[in-house]
């Protein structure tokens, strides 16, 4: 269940992880992308913190929307549009339900609509999809997340910048998958996965 409190704990922790892993994420983005994923998300994390500090959200919808708007207006790049869209869809759905699985499923649907990718294309979808499935079964574990992230390594990218390097994308983790992994680890730790 995603209460306002859980959302805030979740996201604060995610922001912390992002700022810690900023350089690592950009490094991951270097061989198969343009080396900015960590910087992009760090701008987003800062903007989320600023937005949440400025005004405590009244409810889950307000919280999710504030997060979405910070991401949409400060991140840019592919990940800004994608994470922004996912949180915007979660915000919309949160008016009807607080069930984590439903909210994440709405986020995933938004991601897929925005980016046109499906699983196996070496993107963040490859983490979101198994996480949504596991959450629906009430079974999300760190291992599921880690495995999903790790599974992007042998994949060949066919979407996003990484697709430009073709076969050379094989053997590298997808940066967006790794950052999504952090998102769901934070969710798990915040107790929001059930």
């Amino acid at each position, binding site marked *: 269940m995603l209460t306002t409190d859980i959302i805030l704990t979740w996201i604060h922790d995610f922001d912390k992880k992002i700022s810690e892993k900023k350089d690592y994420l950009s490094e991951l983005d*270097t061989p198969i992308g*343009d*080396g*900015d994923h960590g910087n992009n998300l760090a701008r987003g994390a800062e903007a989320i913190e600023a937005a949440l500090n400025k005004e405590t959200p009244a409810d889950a919808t307000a919280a999710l929307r504030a997060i979405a708007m910070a991401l*949409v207006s400060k991140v*840019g790049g*592919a990940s*800004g*549009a994608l994470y922004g869209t996912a949180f915007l869809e979660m915000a919309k759905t949160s008016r009807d339900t607080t069930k984590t699985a439903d909210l994440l499923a709405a986020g995933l649907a938004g991601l897929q609509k925005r980016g046109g990718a499906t699983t196996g294309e070496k993107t963040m979808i490859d983490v979101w999809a198994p996480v949504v499935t596991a959450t629906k079964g009430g079974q999300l574990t760190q291992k599921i997340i880690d495995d999903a992230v790790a599974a992007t390594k042998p994949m*060949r990218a066919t979407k996003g910048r990484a697709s430009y390097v073709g076969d050379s994308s094989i053997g590298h983790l997808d940066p967006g998958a790794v950052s999504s992994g952090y998102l769901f680890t934070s969710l798990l730790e915040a107790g929001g996965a059930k």
Partner: protein
Amino acid sequence: MKKIMNDPKNIVAEMVEGMVRAYPQFVERLPETEALVRSDKSSMTGKVGLISGGGSGHEPTHAGFIGEGMLSAAVCGQVFTSPTPDQIYAAIKAADQGKGVFMVIKNYSGDVMNFDMAKDMADLDGIEVKSITVDDDIAVENSTFTQGRRGVAGTIFMHKILGAAADQGASLTELETLAKKVLPNIKTIAVALSGATVPEVGKPGFTLADDELEYGVGIHGEPGYRKEKMRPSKDLVKELLGKLKAAFNYQAGDKFAVLVNGMGATPLMEQFVFMRDVLNQLKDEGVNVAFTKVGNYMTSLDMAGVSLTLFKLTDDSWLDNLNYPVNTIAWTQK
């Protein structure tokens, strides 16, 4: 890394400030954004707005092409990062004169998605928006297994052609038709001698040995298709024109515009030598060159190297559009 800057986090904001203060006759900043609009509003009246944008680090692209006969507005994203939809939306609103707005997007997933989101926002306002996604970089296979080809230096020809048409009163639909017709006729390929350093990253995106070059590198340092030992300009030309020839399947008598574009750290001297070798080979092949341009137009920060764009002039009016008067920071023509 040595760069003339203050806090790397503010480099785009400070660059934009420098631009609008150095060239107030050309560009104005939209409040609280890194989006710029043409200063001479009267030149926009009654015409379709033409906007572009993308990550920064490619200067003078895009803001350097704002002005009469070219762009109405441009959006400067963070370095090598597509701009956010709210800023693109601001540019759309500023460019719209009631005739709709045409967007020139470079084919990167981030750009495409963010421009799409901005279009969605403008739709709600009833502003009609159409777009073209430029994908001129033939270094990448255009297959269903990739995001498609990247948009690179050839984009400035798209700006020029559409800018001239918009200035002459083309409608939004006419611009779309023109853009679609022009698109497959613009193809580009690059050779890099060194990587670019993103200010916030602090080290080059890739490195090459002291005697090494890489063919097919993208404008964000995306890997190319082959590295090899440094070779004379003529040989580079042979390699790149070979790729372009295969892509166009061009014949003696075909008519082209040619752009030699410096990536940022390559002196004009070298660009002119390279252009000479390009023109020599094209002449040998019987190709007719009707328009030429040499300089730093679509750069990649401090990358050394050049890109070569051929634009096949299958329609005579396109040459007129290239020669149409224009008045911007980076491209001014009587």
